[in-house]
């Protein structure tokens, strides 16, 4: 791609000045903008799965994951959980085979200090687990641990553990997951239980994504630090 060009000297001086000034002004204007995390407005109401499907132009798997990245950008403090759950539901409906919404619900949005919000996220996981138990059991297993150790609600933890045992049928669901209720009833610390579960998931090949493994390792380290384990 070549073209004949006249020398720069052929351009009138006022055009060069205008170009330089406009470029300088543009850079200066953009330079004054805050470059850190933008101050976000509150999470807008979730669109329906049908509306998201229309906006996806057929790329449902992509839009589902991009919507999760969008949700991740909101600060957890002050997040409207009713809207969040609606967003997670629409995202999961867009690509039911994606693990991202349930992972985020169980590992991110349920692990907050506010018990009411935590319960809402856990109930979302439980409700969506029932639609596809053989694929979604790892998130409910984690929900059981959160219910026991964070919420101190043994009855809720047992309900989730029983649901895994009752509803999973596939051969690839490990024995420890089916016997989650025993696991819950044992007098085991949160760190020990999390280590057993993470080890089991890694061993069974359930976790093969490097970002997910790094995120879970980070969470385990944080738990160890909090418990003063070296």
């Amino acid at each position, binding site marked *: *791609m070549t073209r004949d060009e006249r020398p720069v000297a052929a351009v009138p001086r006022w055009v060069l000045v205008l170009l330089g000034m406009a470029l300088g002004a543009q850079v200066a204007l953009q330079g004054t903008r805050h470059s850190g995390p933008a101050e976000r407005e509150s999470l807008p109401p979730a669109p329906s799965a*049908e*509306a998201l*499907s*229309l906006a*996806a*132009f*057929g*790329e*449902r*798997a*992509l839009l589902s*994951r*991009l919507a*999760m*990245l969008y949700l*991740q950008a909101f600060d957890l403090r002050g997040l409207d959980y009713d809207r969040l759950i609606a967003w997670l539901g629409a995202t999961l409906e867009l*690509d039911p*085979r*994606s*693990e*991202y919404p349930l*992972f*985020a619900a169980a*590992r*991110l949005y349920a692990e907050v200090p506010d018990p009411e919000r935590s319960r809402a996220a856990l109930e979302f996981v439980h409700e969506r687990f029932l639609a596809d138990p053989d694929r979604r059991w790892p998130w409910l297993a984690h929900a059981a641990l959160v219910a026991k150790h964070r919420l101190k609600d043994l009855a809720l933890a047992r309900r989730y553990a029983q649901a895994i045992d009752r509803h999973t049928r596939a051969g690839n669901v490990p024995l420890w997951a089916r016997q989650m209720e025993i696991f819950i009833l044992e007098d085991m610390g949160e760190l020990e239980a999390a280590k057993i579960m993470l080890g089991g998931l890694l061993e069974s090949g359930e976790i093969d*994504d*490097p*970002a*997910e493994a790094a*995120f879970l390792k980070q969470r385990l380290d944080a738990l160890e630090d909090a418990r003063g384990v070296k």
Partner: protein
Amino acid sequence: MPAAILARFVLAEARRGGLPWLALASLIAAVSLAAFLSQVAITESRALQLAVLAAVLRAAAVFLVAAQVAASTLREIDDKGLELMLSLPLSRATHYLGRFAGFAACAVALAAAFAAALLPWAPPAATALWGVSLACEAALVAAAALFFAMTLGQLVPAIAATAGLYLLARSIAAIQAIAAGPLADDSALSRIASVAVDGVALLLPRLDAVTHTDWLLYGAPGAGAYAAALGGLALYGTLLVAAGLFDFYRRSV
């Protein structure tokens, strides 16, 4: 064979016009975007990378083909090259089909290059099926852009019409689902709208059923569904070429 010579001319023009460099730029942009987005994902980072790559490359292939076909065809019409070609002892069908074959070959080359770029991320068999589907989809877009360029005779309307047809074809299934959904109003107006949407769908190709990112993420589709989807594209491509030929034969050039 005159049609093959015309097709070669079209391919040479695309190469000289910088299409390979634009394809390379699209590839670099897609890989960069996918790498950036996968850095912020806390799970499914590889799936996200693959989904972004596949979606961006699909859109790039379709846009590049449509722009190339419309610009090349209209340049030939504006430069009176079409009149010169028609003075040769070639039938109009040979001329039209030769050009279409050249544009379809561009589409196949782009699809092959983009599918090859996905191989480090996706299983080879699924990638091959995705690539063949993209080649068919881009060839159909080439047929649509050629038809609109020849019929409308202006660059912007030709590209706008091609883009409109393409986007509508990709979203018509979602529009039909919304129109027939349980929340849809049961009034007469709503029923008429639903019938109208179904009527429009009859005249569109099922682009929502082809070149799925799901095939790369979750495994190849069933042979029957895949063959039916590509068969639908072949049928619609034939319809567009026939409509283009009909218009071209009626044109008093």
